[in-house]
């Protein structure tokens, strides 16, 4: 519990604005995520669509 409170205290101090060297990896990670979701959930390629068919219905992605 003590470590926890010190942690959140240091959190307040280290909650700094995003610096350039951190912004690039963050945006790369977000782009990778968008690419992955788009590839699986939005592909018009038939084989990809059929493979992820039940997934797309279950996640309510626009399907077919």
């Amino acid at each position, binding site marked *: 519990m003590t470590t926890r409170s010190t*942690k*959140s205290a*240091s*959190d307040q101090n*280290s*909650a*700094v604005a*995003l610096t350039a*060297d*951190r912004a690039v*990896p*963050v*945006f*790369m*990670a*977000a782009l*990778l*995520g*968008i*690419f*992955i*979701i788009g590839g*699986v*959930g*939005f592909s*018009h390629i*038939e*084989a990809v*669509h*059929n*493979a*992820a*068919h*039940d*997934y*797309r*219905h*279950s*996640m*309510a*992605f*626009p*399907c*077919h």
Partner: protein
Amino acid sequence: MDYFRSIVVVAAIAGIVAGIGMTIAQQLVTVPMILKAELFEAQSASDGSSPATAAGVAAHDHGAQSEAHGHAEQAGAHDHGDGWAPADGIERTAFTLLANVVTGVGFALLLVAASELFGGLAGWRQGVFWGLAGFVIFTLAPGLGLAPELPAMPAAELGARQIWWVGTVVSTALALWLLFYVKSLPATVLAFVLLIAPHVIGAPQPASHESPIPDNLHHSFIVAVVLTTLVFWGLLGGLAGYARERFIGHA
């Protein structure tokens, strides 16, 4: 560890575990309903006088029945074509698991990246709240206009629906950012405009909603989809918050 790699590791842990959990939930709840709907679909495809074909709503053809192709030519074709599809049973379930895990990692990457912009997730509990935001953005908002649907249900043209879906997701995400981080009266007003706008514009709808799927099956499916995705997002966010503490900490 390199910052980018840390983000990917955190997202991978959350996405893989939540994806496996989601697959189990789907096999128990949503997939049996999809399989049931496919029976209604096959029935209506073989019966020319069914409401679906009478309404010009085409068959949901998985390439199995050649006679269904005639119907699939009609407007609003719901055609899976003759392309490869996994065999029913283990193979089909395995691909659903793969899709869940891969997109789970994708959603986790977005969740972790977005939260890093605001200082990063401080523990599993904050992760759960970010997960709930993901649920509102990716399930609740687009689902209001485009309800979860079963096979054989008519829908508007796919491209138009995908554009509306992405637009609604972006607009809702911006609205939540304005509400929680900009914290001013004009930002709050704009946030509500952004939340409402996609639904005023309206999601693309089919000419007719008539389908061979019974209403009560569809209703149960909507509830099942919303609740399983709610659990998925809570789990994804919570796991991401937990893993973030261990792999990124206060770097």
